[in-house]
């Protein structure tokens, strides 16, 4: 079973890298990009076969390592 974790900065946390990307897009002539937020996608191959157990386990991984919950939020997808 595969799981995909999306990690994003929480709303209200300034994202300097996203801002740099936004400026670069403007420099390339892409007008009308009001904001860019950059995050991470982490894909996991799991031996677990129960979707419910996988979701619990991956959520625990997010809390303990994959996301820093001081500044980041996460979303777990079981594929």
């Amino acid at each position, binding site marked *: 079973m595969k799981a995909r974790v999306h990690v994003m900065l929480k709303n209200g946390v*300034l994202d300097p890298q996203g801002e740099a990307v936004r400026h670069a897009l403007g420099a390339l002539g892409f007008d009308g990009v009001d904001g860019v937020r950059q995050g991470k996608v982490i894909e996991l191959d799991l031996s677990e076969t129960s979707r419910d157990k996988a979701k619990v386990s991956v959520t625990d991984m997010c809390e303990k390592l994959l996301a*820093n919950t*001081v500044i980041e939020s996460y979303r777990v997808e079981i594929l």
Partner: protein
Amino acid sequence: MRAGVIVFPGSNCDRDLAVAFAQAGADVSMVWHKDVSLPDNLDVIGIPGGFSFGDYLRCGAIAARSPICSAVVEHAKRGGYVIGICNGFQVLCETGLLPGTLMRNSGIKFVCKTIRLRVETTQGAFLQNYKMGQEIQMPVAHHDGNYTADDDLIARLDGDGRVAFRYLENPNGSASDIAGVLSANKRVLGLMPHPERAVEAAHGGTDGAALFAGLASVLENA
């Protein structure tokens, strides 16, 4: 004073930190990250600067979950002294021993220069040899030194005398110009500037020496 310096793959200030401890009179042991326990009777643990584990995932994140870090957390919880410098500060935030976190510099660029700081408290062994409000200089060299904490936390840190140093010219966008913070018991210090790179005249300044000397005076009398 017995000091241990943790060495991760990618640490690059470990030997500088060992020299600074030794100059203050410490017996220094280097401790490999895969070790599961610390040498006996350590008084202080130093977590050095560098790029542990290549800054993969987040700065300090992988190092903070390495086997030795459980022992470092236990040492701190027993009231032991810990100092984390630069990447070491990032590691301490990731372990939860210090609050807040360090994000990418607001100006995106790596910042490498000597910078002016103000001493914000003289509580605890690390800071007792400075004067309140003293202006000092130390080098900074980091890409992710932007201290991030919400307003409530910063107010609490200020109220409890836990802000150790503030930047006089903020180089990285840190909240409230914070350059270093202390634990509640003032025995865990994390800071982005490098005191170990300011302990002898050849470094261009010696303002970091008081930090190690302060620690030594407390631990030698213990």
